[in-house]
């Protein structure tokens, strides 16, 4: 079966897309009907070969556990993966992910979720001392690469990805998102151009608490991939989105860069701008480019990524893909098209189009937007 994994003989998967995101800075929860409505306005930005959602704050009862969402092609794959999980993790709870038959999603893999934490006496401790997060990352990569017919599509805490092959509004019905509540939502509508739909290839792509939805094609994928491989990331999916997620994981989680600086790596300012900065700042930005030149995402993209502390939306350094943002009270909306925002928030306080490479960052702690990328005239 060609469902969970990319078995097409392409170096990588290319797609155009639509995306949107909704966040409440005070962590007020809403159900999935708004995000569904919003992404459904962007129906024509996809072709029915991939849709998906990420939601944060949906598993408050298991907030301290890693929530693994795994798709299986067969029950034997499930048995193999569960053996691995049992050996390495304490499984607090496991269940089939509730899905609902709709006429539109007629063919799907077996979808299961586990609330787990790594065992303190797990076998790998004999060889190295990995933190829990690192061990989870390794486990996700191991399963996705080595276990045929199994694919982990969500592995964070108190968050989850729900995705599949189909238009996003149908995927929303399939998982019945109106019954799920969260304080941050992202959504994606996919238009793959070189592979037919496969479930694992739908967005969001997630790793730990990272979730990425992405519209674009990273023209620098070749070197981004080789750069990540140097740090032992395994790019099994061969998608741009996977590369972006790993770069963020490397920069923010491993290299401990502040989010804002990590973002300037992805869409770095041009030297002509850096040269005009003063002293320390110029030195810092020059060093960022010297060290992380291979992590620059070059080519058209608009991304929305969620993480434990908030949400970021940004464009590539010359804005080759659409991205609009709006805010209304504690809510911030981002989308490929303004219409998608107006569909769920008719009269926002402000609507703006973020400038190239300048991120919109919304973090929960601050309870406000502390950087409005390229916001003009305020």
């Amino acid at each position, binding site marked *: 079966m060609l469902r969970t994994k990319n078995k097409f*003989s392409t*170096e*990588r998967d*290319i*797609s*155009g897309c639509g995306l949107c995101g909704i966040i409440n800075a005070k962590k007020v929860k809403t159900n999935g009907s708004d995000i569904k409505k919003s992404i459904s306005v962007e129906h024509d930005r996809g072709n029915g070969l991939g849709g998906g959602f990420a939601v944060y704050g949906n598993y408050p009862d298991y907030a301290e556990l890693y929530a693994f969402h795994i798709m299986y092609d067969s029950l034997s794959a499930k048995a193999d993966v569960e053996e691995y999980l049992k050996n390495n993790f304490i499984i607090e709870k496991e269940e089939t992910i509730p899905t609902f038959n709709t006429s539109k999603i007629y063919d799907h893999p077996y979808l299961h979720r586990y609330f787990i934490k790594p065992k303190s006496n797990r076998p790998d401790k004999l060889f190295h001392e990995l933190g829990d997060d690192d061990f989870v990352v390794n486990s996700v990569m191991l399963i996705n690469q080595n276990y045929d017919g199994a694919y982990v599509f969500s592995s964070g805490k108190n968050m989850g990805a729900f995705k599949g092959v189909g238009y996003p509004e149908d995927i929303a019905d399939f998982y019945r998102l109106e019954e799920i509540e969260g304080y941050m939502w992202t959504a994606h509508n996919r238009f793959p*151009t*070189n592979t037919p739909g496969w479930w694992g290839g739908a967005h969001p792509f997630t790793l730990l608490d990272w979730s990425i939805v992405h519209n*674009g*094609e990273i*023209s*620098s*994928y*070749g*070197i981004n*991939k*080789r*750069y990540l*491989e*140097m*740090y032992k990331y395994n790019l099994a999916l061969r998608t741009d989105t996977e590369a972006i997620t790993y770069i963020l994981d490397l920069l923010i989680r*491993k*290299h401990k*860069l*502040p989010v804002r*600086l990590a973002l300037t790596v992805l869409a*770095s300012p*041009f*030297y*002509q701008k850096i040269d005009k900065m003063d002293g*320390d*700042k110029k*030195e*810092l930005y*020059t*060093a*960022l*480019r*010297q*060290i*992380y*030149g*291979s992590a*620059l995402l*070059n*080519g*058209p993209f608009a991304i929305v990524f969620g993480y434990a502390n908030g949400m970021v939306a940004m464009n590539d*350094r*010359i804005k*080759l893909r659409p991205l609009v943002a709006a805010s209304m009270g504690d809510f911030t909306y981002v989308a490929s098209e303004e219409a998608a925002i107006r569909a769920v928030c008719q009269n926002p306080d402000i609507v703006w189009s973020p400038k190239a490479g300048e991120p919109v960052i919304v973090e929960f702690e601050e309870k406000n937007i502390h950087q409005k990328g390229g916001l003009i005239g305020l």
Partner: protein
Amino acid sequence: MTKSSFSNIQSEYLALIDQNKCVRCKRCIQNCGWGTYSFGGDKIISDHSKCVACGRCYTYCPEGAISIVKNPTIIRENANWKEGLIKNIWRQSETGGIVISGMGTTFKYKKYFDHILLDACQVTNPSIDPLREPMELRTYLGKKPSRLDIDIDVNGEPVLKSKMPPQIELQTPFVFGAMSYGSISLNAQKAMALAARALGIVMNTGEGGLHDDLVPFGKNIIVQVASGRFGVHRDYLNSGVAVEIKIGQGAKPGIGGHLPGEKIGVDISRTRMIPVGTDAISPAPHHDIYSIEDLRQLIYAVKEATGYEKPVSVKVAAVHNIAAIVSGIVRAGADIVYIDGYTGGTGAAPNIIKDHVGIPIEIALAQVDERLREEGIRSEASIIAAGSIRSSADAIKAIALGADAVAIGTAALIVMGCHVCGKCNTGNCSWGITTQRPELVRRLDPEVYGERLYNLISAWSHEIQEVLGAMGVNSIDSLRGSRERLRGVELTDAELKALGIKHAGL
């Protein structure tokens, strides 16, 4: 043994003069560094045996009266006993010596650059127009830490915790390859220095010391330390932006160099710090480097002498085990590794070495880059690729295979008029490049050729920008090492594997 009065070796070229056009201005006599022409009372006479087809005479003949043709007198064709082999046997049987020549090998080996094709954007990702959008070629050479450590200052702004190691800033990913004063003329070096300064790139002194006239160009110069240690002193090490330790050269891996005493005039003697008229012999190995740990000592001796303020480069020839060698060099502390492929040029080298030793730069580069990445040390050093970069296309492909920058040697000399006649070793270069004869050197105007070098590198840089734009990226960083943008044609599986690229269509 009595010397026979005749040679079997016939003239390779004929210098033919159309006596109807010739106005007896005698410019050809003046221009030819080889003494081919003389005045026979009423007309110019050619001694064909001296002609090397360097092109100087017909370029400067005001009447277009000269044509240089290949000597039509044949040596009987034989695919096995080729003309060159037969002539070498005659030559060596007449002299008992090693056959020496200048420039790179003339053998027709497979040129891998010519079997690699570049990618471009169509529909799914947009190409970028370099005439309308910024297109960055700036390149930094030197050790990069694998991660950035930052502090937060009093204003809550991030600042660098530790200073970056020293870097060479290049405005475009080209450098001029190492060519010493001695092997080439001072005017040729000056032309490169002027161009390097105008372009924001660097030239390289080679193992010939730094002439006083070039000291003001320090910010655009890499000074070299090679096995003869000519011209090396503390101020010399500190006078450029970086120091290069030369271990080997693509045209002559494993052997040293020899600048004959007759070329060591007052000026060169001063610059090289050796007596006038003595042979300048660079030994095959450095006499203080017999292993990798010795190299480490020299690298750190140079760093100590320069206060850790200049990157140290190590230049090696591409040989069979190059990946492991470069890995060792990087771990020994080099900040830059300069890899010279087997088609690289030289002022003089035995043909036996030049034509048969080493490996192609394309493959060496791909293997080195892959190896350093596997070991997680690729960012520890920058890589300069060299060994006949003939066009911007070669440069782009080298960068996509993993080079940080490429070095231009022969191409720079071609700018100055070089016709690649391969007779650099004789010191008679009619173009004033590889000669120390004052009347020949004088004709090479550094400003004229400095500008032409500037033009060439600018043109190539524009071409690289066009290609980057077509690929949909606006920084050279995004092409560097991106083999995914390369495809091979007419290559075997083994060759594709060695290059780390896929066949076209895959």
